[in-house]
């Protein structure tokens, strides 16, 4: 029994933990001392307590000593109604909520400060508005219940009111941030904010004069507007497409990333959504550029968006293909650069959707021998999730149509799909085995049709052994497919290899113990 387990019993660990804790306290105290010393060198004191967004704000320096400290003091500052006092109360709340570690969100809520903070958003004083928006941003960073406190007390209307502040873009940015947090809390909150008219209200702020930080923040909020299932109503978010396209092309990479995420969510909505995307000039092309940009952060969402778009109707698929999806895929799968498994998986998933497309689309894919070879190689040796997608590429290509041309069938044979799909027959994913079996069934039919001999290839790949074994499978579908294939194409053969022992290590011959039903 491990010693660690025994140390979990009662307080056996406390003594050692106490020493470890003493050491950590010493380290922390020294770090703080080091930081304090450095703050002096850096003349940071003068710049304390400016908002995080701030770059050049004429911070009205409230003297620290004038700020209320205890909750009771804050309450009386709010209650006084005096603009300067309210500003200080907002600032005091914000400072408490900005504490590192465990900010006292619940305390601020329980003390009843959410309502006055929301009221402060209607103040005409920029600093007050900003401090309040900042404090509310930090509250909406909390859990769902805490965010709901802000929404239920009219926070959304008040925050969008801040959008009308045309003097201080930082206040607007802070409000956008808070809205982004709220929208990110799930479909209910999202739709609530959309109903409040956020899409129309935000439009005037999406302009190139804004700072990169501002636009990045805004884009992130937009991505949350598109996020989560069920998707937002199409008509309501459709107007976001043009600005998102602009942000996708904007010079700031952060904006590109969040815009790509927004579109990846958007494209997950259905045919209508994808079609609208495809109709925006240059949008798909730009996604293609970002997908092959070799910057992982933006690649992932861009490819996801393209992959989603391929799941729609044939026309959408056609548009995406015509924008160069196959070339992009070839570039991504090219072995010269190591890419993340999730990226590869999404690319191949896209190919599998094309493989299920119109005969012409299938032909276009089947004539890309470079792609077929990459897919075949990965089917043999990659993460299972990727192998699965690869299997679907071949499965879809041959099963959904009998119209593959002879050249295409040759291409499939040449890329060793027969050998690589055979490896799938040994997995334990029933659905996938079925796909693989259908692949063989259709390949054998196509081979008959075009008069090509693939029997020995099938046999040598080990697939035949698997067919034999799969006749014992408990799934009726698999059982009958396997029987059908063997009986139709392999019955007259004289099998010289009756052994079904495929285990690499030998199973002992006499196992007399009881069998377990796993």
């Amino acid at each position, binding site marked *: *029994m491990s010693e660690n*387990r*025994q140390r979990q*019993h*009662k*307080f056996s660990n*406390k*003594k050692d933990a*106490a020493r470890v804790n003493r*050491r950590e306290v*010493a380290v922390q105290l*020294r*770090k703080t*001392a*080091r930081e304090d010393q*450095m703050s002096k*060198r*850096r003349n*940071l004191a003068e*710049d*304390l*307590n*400016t908002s*995080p967004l*701030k*770059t*050049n704000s004429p911070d009205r320096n409230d003297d620290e000593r004038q700020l209320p*400290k*205890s*909750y009771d003091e804050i309450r009386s500052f709010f209650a006084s109604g005096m603009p300067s006092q309210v500003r200080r109360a907002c600032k005091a709340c914000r*400072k*408490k909520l*900005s*504490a*590192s570690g465990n900010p*006292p969100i619940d*305390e601020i809520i329980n003390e009843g400060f959410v309502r006055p903070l929301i009221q402060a958003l209607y103040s005409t004083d920029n600093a007050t508005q900003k401090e309040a928006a900042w404090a509310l941003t*930090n509250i909406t960073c909390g859990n769902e219940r805490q965010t709901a406190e802000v929404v239920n007390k009219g926070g959304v209307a008040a925050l969008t009111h801040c959008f009308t502040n045309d003097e201080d873009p930082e206040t607007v940015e802070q409000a956008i941030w808070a809205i982004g947090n709220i929208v990110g809390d799930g479909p209910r909150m999202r739709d609530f904010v959309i109903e409040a008219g956020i899409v129309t209200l935000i439009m005037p702020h999406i302009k190139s004069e804004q700072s990169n*930080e501002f636009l990045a923040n805004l884009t992130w909020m937009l991505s949350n507007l598109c996020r989560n299932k069920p998707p937002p109503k199409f008509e309501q978010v459709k107007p976001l497409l043009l600005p998102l396209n602009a942000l996708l092309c904007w010079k700031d*990479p952060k904006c590109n990333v969040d815009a790509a*995420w927004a579109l990846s969510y958007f494209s997950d909505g259905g045919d209508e959504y994808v079609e609208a995307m495809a109709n925006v000039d240059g949008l798909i092309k730009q996604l293609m550029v970002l997908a092959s940009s070799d910057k992982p952060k933006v690649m*992932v969402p861009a490819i996801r968006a393209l992959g989603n778009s391929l799941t729609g109707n044939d026309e959408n698929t056609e548009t995406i293909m015509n924008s160069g999806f196959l070339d992009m895929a070839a570039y991504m799968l090219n072995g010269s650069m190591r890419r993340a498994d*999730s990226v590869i998986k999404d690319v191949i998933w896209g190919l599998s959707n094309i493989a299920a497309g119109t005969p012409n689309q299938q032909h276009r894919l089947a004539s890309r021998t470079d792609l077929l070879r990459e897919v075949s190689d990965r089917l043999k040796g990659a993460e299972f999730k990727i192998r699965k997608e690869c299997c679907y590429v071949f499965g879809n290509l041959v099963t959904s149509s009998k119209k593959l041309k002879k050249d295409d069938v040759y291409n499939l044979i040449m890329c060793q799909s027969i050998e690589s799909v055979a490896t799938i027959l*040994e*997995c*334990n994913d029933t659905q996938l085995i079925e796909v693989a079996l259908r692949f063989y069934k259709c390949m054998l039919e196509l081979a008959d049709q075009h008069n090509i001999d693939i029997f020995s290839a099938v046999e040598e790949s080990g697939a035949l052994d698997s067919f034999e074994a799969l006749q014992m499978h408990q799934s009726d579908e698999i059982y009958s497919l396997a029987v059908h294939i063997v009986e139709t194409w392999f019955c007259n053969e004289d099998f010289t290899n009756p052994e079904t022992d495929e*285990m*690499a*290590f*030998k199973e*002992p011959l*006499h*196992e*007399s*113990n*009881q*069998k*377990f*039903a*796993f």
Partner: protein
Amino acid sequence: MAQLLEILKKTTDAVHCREAQTQLEQAAASNLPEFLVQLSVVLANPQNDELCRFQAALQLKNHLVSNNSQTKLEYQQRWLMIDKGLRDQVKTNSRPSSIPQVIAAIAGAELPNGHWGEVIQALATNATDEKAAARFERTKEASIEAIGYICSDVKPELLSAQSNLILTSICSGLLANQNQYIRQAAITALFNSLEFVKINFEKENERSHIMQVVCNQTVKDPNNGDTDITIRTRAMECLVKIAMLYYEHIQNYMQEIFKITISSMDLSQPEQIILQAIEFWSTICDEEMDLILEAEEARESGQEPTRVSNAYADGALPHLCPKLTILLTQQDDDTNTDEWSPSKAAGVCLMNLANSCGNSILPQVMEFIGSNFENPKWQNREAALMCFGSILEGPSVENLKPAIDQAFPIIVKAMSDPSAAVRDTAAWFVGRVCDIVPEAVLNPNIFEHVLQAMVNGLADEPRVAQNICWAFSSLSDAAYDHAQNQLGTEDTPTTYCMSRFFGGIIEKLLVTTNRQDGNQENLRNAAYEAIMELMKNAPDDCYDIVLKTTEEVMSRIQNLFAMENGIDSSMMSQYHDMQGLLCATLTAIIRKVKPEHMNELSDKCMEYLLKMLAKSNGVGSVQEDALGAVGTLIEVVGKGFEKYMPHFKPYLILALENHAEIAVCIAGVGVVTDLCRAMGKDFKNYFEEIMTKMYNALISATIDRNVKPQIVAAIGDAALAIGPDFSQYLAPVMDALQQAASFEVSTNDYEMLDYQTDLRESCLDAFTGIIQGLKGTDENSNPQASQVRALEQYLPFIFDFLCKIAENTEDMTDSLLKNACGLIGDISMVFGSMIPQNQLMQAFSTQGVQSLLQLGNRSRVDRTKRLAGWAIRQIRKIERGQA
């Protein structure tokens, strides 16, 4: 030969054994290869006396391996130096005789160096050749046993290529028709091989076969009657290890494993079996908690988790809880032992279940808890408390608090239960509540009752009092936090809910530390820790008591010195414990004492601490705690510490040279940073000597690496302290720092990744310290003549380093980000007026630097946000030509 046999025989008789041992040692020393060959010859001849052969094998093994890893490595190298012909002779002689440990010992030396690859094949042949086995049954058993030893000894990657052979041998040994010794050897070998049969585990048919074999061994054999209990236990251990290594592959077998483990938790089962069944579920909880965390992390960074929890624990809860609660009640009357038991394991398992299943455990256990609180049998009362205390961490506070509130009067009563075991667990329960749900204790309706019961408990048996002490530690922390939250500041509160009782509690705790039986159950330690926590968390209105405690601690230290000569060696470790504890208590107090009071105290404090260091007898923990106290003292007295330096420096140097005890070395480095901050420019007098010692530790290849980040950061402190004069040391220091900054982990080893982060954070600290130090504080000096120009040539490296940090977003921590933003700001602040604008702006506009600043600007931590904002403004100044 005959002579060797004679000597070997003598080793087995008590009278001559020492003499024989000496002779054997002489033989080994005069010609080791010859000696080993001779031994193997004795071993190989079945005609020889069985005992002599055993002794020969033992001798052989002892010259090949050792329990000490360093010695073992040396032995292995020594073996490989022996002529190949002679080595082969030993190997051939050892094989038929099949002495498993000898074979494993030789393999342990040969395999890592690419020799003797055929050994597994040879053993596998022996193990699976049924004809050979029929001739001599021991061959099969010994071969499998040898495979098992090799598996546990040799690195997995060297064996995975032969996993098929190994598994074939093992499985053949686990057949029902094999005798129990063979099966014992085989199941042990399987246990040892699980790490490197990954390839086999990934194939479903092979995995199913292994699982079947393992499961078969866990149950009573229908043919042979009882399966050997050792075999069953080992097989259960295999299941535990499989759950840990191959969680994602066990789905198809869970139903069967579930049946096996649940039926194994029956009281009719042997203890070892019950323990392993419980351990299986604790392990599942460990895995699932990790997976839940992983999934959360993935989601936060917008990715799909690669592996997910299948929530087996959740599904099994309704079946596990009744079994576990029954096991909880199974205790003998004399229970206060350290021995691990099903009842303890059940408590731990409930804790893990609660942690991984959260609220859903409550309906499964509350009924048991409620109905047993006042059961006439003490075992049941104890079990109810144990169960309740164990699950506190999992469910949400909202769900727990009503139950705790309702139970508290009963708990308080339980603290004076006639059974010590019940009082013990009740006290532990209170401690757990203070730790996890402190608001339940701070509830004004019960607070005083609980406090009274706790104070009474301090006089109880050590096991009870110890728990109370830990409860006081947590409670004082919670009460202090509560007071701060009420105020909404991090300042010291003027008062808190324990103030009225503070003096009384400290007094009782001081009495507790002096109890005669204080060395039992860690009681003394726990009591001192509680005092430290109370000191640390003392509000303003308890300050007088802090001062009073200072006097008490000082006089205790004096008494301790007076006692020293009268202590016999058996008490020595208690004496050292006392030294360490008093130093640590002193540290907690010094941190609290106001400077004006410290002035009168510091001479005496330092006198005692120096004496403590002098009398530490080389005990690391004492030195560590004493150095900790000195560091705190330095912080309080500042420049005034200079007068103690002549006396203190030798001890500091000793600590920095103590590479063997890393905690001491780290404590020394900590004191160096305190000295730098306190002395400023005056640190120059000690700089070279101290720096040399730290540099030696930094470049040492054998020292525990955890000291290195501390040293790197301390270099920054030293540079900052001595200012522009640092430039003369710049070249060698930057050389070492560049090496440290270039350190990169290649594996996914989390511990190493943490280390890498620490090291990088410290490098940033060091660069910052050096830049700010070289710049100096003289605002009127000519910037073009500044010493800081010497650093210019290193700026490209520093920028590359920043970009490397920026790229690695996965391991980004807030403090790393904070330091990076700070350094960027420092560079712009210091070099803004020195380096051509376009050159600097180019360096600042790289994607790496920009993304660090943006990330910092978005940090939720105020300090980081502020630094990033500051850095952005510094850069903007340069951009506008205002620098």
